[in-house]
């Protein structure tokens, strides 16, 4: 899925087969993409029955990640020879320091906190680690699920790795000895789309799911603390339960964090405040979003901004901030800086934000009808 992330200096938008960097002070755009030879499609893929050729080519989106120190950028491409590219910021320029094949299309990529590795959660169900400090070192297999992975994250202290999949599972394992599973967080009834740590209490995991809920867990014990049915706050017009694409969390005080939620097929982005460390209280602050453009992605950045990526031809990127009363305001000046690039970002929305294949088909085996002999 196309996504947006950023820090004080820049925003990184991933989509298609590249990452687009926007300089925040002047809105200038830089595209980082795989070297020319790679863009050629090596094998001619025949579209499946019922699919148009453009639908088929865009089944995957590139994934990008920015390290927390802001000095490294990673891109997992999805066309040609799927590869992981890593750029390092040297002064004002991004130089490519690594290019290694990844094999299967990535669902999510992330830097570890120390930026020593990039983790890739792929669509085949595996997590691979790529060294950043040794840019030519071969990838290392860390763990595997049976179902397709949708997100992976590592705790700040780099002691635990958490992965979530299409089969409703969240698995907590040790890191880097990932073969040692510590616990499972079981409770979601549909695919789990994202994982974050509650910033004011890092023992708590925040997950989002196709079942329409955000859940908070004491992940080391596999214990569910709280379940927030988002549809209660942002009901769909026809009463259907809408899936949650992802959520973003941000610390605002030693005992409180904000959480913005991105809902499938919805133009509304609710923002919550989560208070307390053991006894959690959740309050809806407001719901951002207007017009009928689907919110694609939401992300808080360290400089107290909130980014929104919207399927909007004129304004695909919005930057918001809030005051001491948690009233959210659109940062008009900065948002306008990015409007001139709206055409470039259109390809980010070329495939559905929640692919239909994530939903279970629940088919009956032909032998399900057992003849009972009386």
């Amino acid at each position, binding site marked *: 899925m196309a996504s947006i992330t950023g820090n004080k200096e820049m925003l990184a938008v991933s989509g298609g087969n590249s990452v687009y960097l926007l300089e925040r002070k002047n809105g200038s755009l830089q595209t980082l993409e795989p070297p020319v030879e790679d863009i050629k499609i090596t094998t001619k893929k025949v579209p499946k029955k019922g699919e148009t050729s453009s639908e088929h080519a865009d089944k995957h989106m590139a994934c990008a990640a920015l390290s927390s120190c802001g000095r490294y950028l990673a891109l997992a491409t999805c066309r040609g020879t799927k590869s992981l590219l890593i750029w390092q910021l040297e002064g004002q320029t991004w130089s490519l320091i690594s290019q290694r094949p990844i094999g299967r299309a990535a669902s999510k990529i992330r830097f570890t906190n120390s930026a020593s590795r990039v983790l890739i959660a792929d669509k*085949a*169900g*595996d997590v691979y680690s790529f060294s950043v400090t040794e840019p030519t070192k071969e990838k290392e*297999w860390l*763990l*595997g*699920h*049976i*179902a397709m992975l949708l997100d992976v994250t590592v705790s700040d202290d780099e002691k635990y790795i958490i992965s979530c999949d299409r*089969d*409703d*599972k969240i698995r907590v*394992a*040790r890191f880097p*000895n*990932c*073969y*040692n*599973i510590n*616990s*499972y967080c*079981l*409770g979601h*009834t549909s695919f789990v789309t994202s994982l974050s740590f509650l910033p004011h209490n890092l023992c708590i995991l925040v997950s989002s799911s196709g079942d329409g809920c955000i859940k908070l867990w004491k992940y080391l014990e596999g214990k569910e603390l709280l379940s927030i049915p988002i549809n209660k706050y942002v009901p769909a017009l026809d009463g259907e339960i809408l899936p949650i694409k992802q959520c973003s969390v941000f610390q605002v005080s030693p005992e409180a964090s904000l959480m913005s939620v991105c809902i499938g097929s919805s133009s509304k982005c609710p923002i919550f405040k989560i208070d307390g460390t053991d006894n959690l209280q959740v309050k809806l602050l407001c719901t951002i979003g207007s017009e009928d453009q689907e919110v694609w992605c939401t992300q808080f950045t360290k400089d107290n901004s909130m980014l929104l990526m919207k399927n909007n031809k004129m304004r695909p990127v919005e930057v918001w901030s809030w005051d001491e009363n948690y009233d959210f305001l659109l940062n008009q000046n900065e948002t306008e800086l990015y409007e001139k690039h709206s055409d470039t970002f259109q390809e980010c929305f070329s495939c559905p934000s929640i692919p239909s294949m994530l939903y*279970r*088909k*629940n*088919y*009956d*085996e032909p*032998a*399900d009808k*057992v*003849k009972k*002999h009386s």
Partner: protein
Amino acid sequence: MASIEQNVRYPQKRHYRQRAHSNPTADHKVDYPIHPDLMDWSKLYPEFPNKRVEFADVGCGYGGLLVALGELFPDVLSLGLEIRVKVSQFVIERIKALRLQEQGKHQNVACLRTNAMKYLPNFFYRGQLKKMFFLFPDPHFKESKHEWRIISRSLLSEYAYLLCEGGLVYTVTDVPDLNQWMVKCLDEHPMFERVSQEELDKDPVVPKLWDSSEEGQKVTRNDGPKLLAVYRRVADPFDSS
């Protein structure tokens, strides 16, 4: 009394035949609890309300080994897991009939139709199992299907989670390639250690693997290779290094 026997309908295998291969990664409509806390075991083991399953026969087929385990270990709850609908139905009917035929016996064995590759952590708690059996698993010969194999580096981590320290994994096959594959996966997993032949000679379960399972009996009849590899779940060596 004769009247009880007349009412016991022992299921006949020929009515429950199903092709051997099933795609374990597909979305079968399968019942499973969201969390082990939510599983009602009383339906399967009505006479044992306070016990937990300790032996799991993964891919129990027509239930031969399962029934033998129940008799060999009357105080332990054994569970057979089978993905094929007809086959699991057979085992369920078989156990029902056995329980009626021999009052007071076979209450400690049951069968569940489920996908063991996906849902074991939904049924069992960490360290709950003492023995896991993988008898004559589907070899899935094609390289593209290797990820369907029930013993793999990914799944072994799950089995390590489900087994208590000291718990055992029994793998049995008559396919040398598959035996080599399973041995390699288990050897390479840091939380499993191979059990010596000496120990296996003393294990009462081992002979049952060949003479109680339907597949095992077939191998004996055809004089096929009997490839057994048993491993013990050990503590993570990472912590002590």
